[in-house]
């Protein structure tokens, strides 16, 4: 398969926009909602997932001819679990505070459907470069999604962004945003906004075709 740079870019953007794992495919909800109480957590979780997704996909892609297809899923899981363990230790080594904030959800990356889905649907069938691009795109999409959740929740729920107070000391934080219901509401609101945009586009398109 030859890839021009344009299609490579498209491939990358696919994961960010048209196939965004969080907003479009609605996968990996648990980490997306559980850890996004602040922008830092969201970003860290996104990077951790990126690491696992990229490494696993690369390894799967490299070994794809070797892996017997009867046990491929088990193999993928072992590979994913390996990298999750690695990232788990890495984060512990970098910052225990961060590790505590992300909690069990680091280890729960193992079962994040996005990763297994990518391994099965893409990496197992494609050579290294496309796999890498696809995995990076997906990871970026997921990270952006998490970041979108985390920033809204942090700004509204604590009045800060990356821990920096934005509105002065008298600001009343909307505590609900950093509580479990807030996670659901913010993601739901994002989806509503995207749906509204999509509908408006469709209407415009319909009008345009009608006029034509």
């Amino acid at each position, binding site marked *: 398969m030859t890839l021009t740079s344009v299609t490579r870019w498209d491939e990358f953007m696919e994961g960010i926009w048209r196939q965004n794992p969080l907003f479009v495919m609605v996968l990996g909800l648990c980490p997306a909602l559980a850890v996004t109480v602040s922008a830092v957590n969201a970003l860290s979780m996104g990077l951790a997932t990126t690491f696992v997704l990229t490494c696993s996909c690369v390894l799967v892609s490299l070994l794809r001819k070797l892996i*017997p*297809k*009867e046990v491929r899923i088990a193999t993928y*899981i072992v590979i994913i*679990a*390996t990298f999750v363990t*690695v990232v788990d230790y890495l984060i512990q080594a970098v*910052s225990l505070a961060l590790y505590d904030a992300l909690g069990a959800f680091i280890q729960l990356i193992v079962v994040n459907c996005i990763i297994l889905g990518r391994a099965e649907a893409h990496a197992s069938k494609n050579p290294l470069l496309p796999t890498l691009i696809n995995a990076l795109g997906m990871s970026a999409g997921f990270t952006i999604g998490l970041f979108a959740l985390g920033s809204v929740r942090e700004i509204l729920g604590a009045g800060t962004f990356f821990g920096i107070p934005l509105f002065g000391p008298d600001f009343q934080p909307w*505590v609900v945003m950093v509580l479990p219901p807030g996670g659901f509401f913010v993601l739901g609101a994002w989806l509503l906004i995207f749906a509204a945009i999509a509908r408006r586009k469709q209407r415009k398109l319909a009008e345009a075709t009608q006029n034509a």
Partner: protein
Amino acid sequence: MTSAAIPPQTTSAVAMIRTLGLIAALCGLIIVSAYQGTYDAVQENKRIAVERAVFKVIPTAKSIVEYAAAPIGTIVKVGAGGTAPNAVPEGAVKFYAGYDASGKLSGIAAEGVAKGYSDNVRILYAYDPATAMISGFGVVAMRETPGIGDKILVDKGFLASFPLQASLSADGAILSREIVTVKHGSKANPWEIDAITGATITSRAVGRAINDSAKRLLPRIVPRISELKEQP
């Protein structure tokens, strides 16, 4: 996942075991190297975290030693140069002793836990043997509501309740007064904690955590406090 335990049909068993073994070995290698590579940093991090927590509640301390107080009255040192962590006697209470630069005991720190608003509140409190007072506390872990429950760390009125009286009764078996949390504005005695309005539940959890732990720990160590006076 469906195929994890289904016996092979097309690939020969030998080839399969060979590749699986290869992959397992590869993964094992990756994990072990990651584990080894980060081990020191992680342990260091953990130690620093504990030290930071203890130093925070015992500001004068410069080094710490971990102990366990067994029910029968013996105190053993845990960790380097003492008992292995998993050989601590049944029912023992762990605590840290903080020593100042000159190696003198500057305070005792121990963990306490109690149910707060949404989950357990886990705290580390400091006991000053010289004055028989609880001099302060820090939070190890909690899931209280940000902006409400976590005010126990910053609320001035609440923190002004410390130091708390924690003297033992005449026979040394129980606290002379149990530590209690009272409604905001009604603290009248040195063993009472002044609750935060709007976060009474978390405030009470702190009080209960200290009280429960101190009740168990202090009768064991106060009579033997002389054993701990000097850094071992």
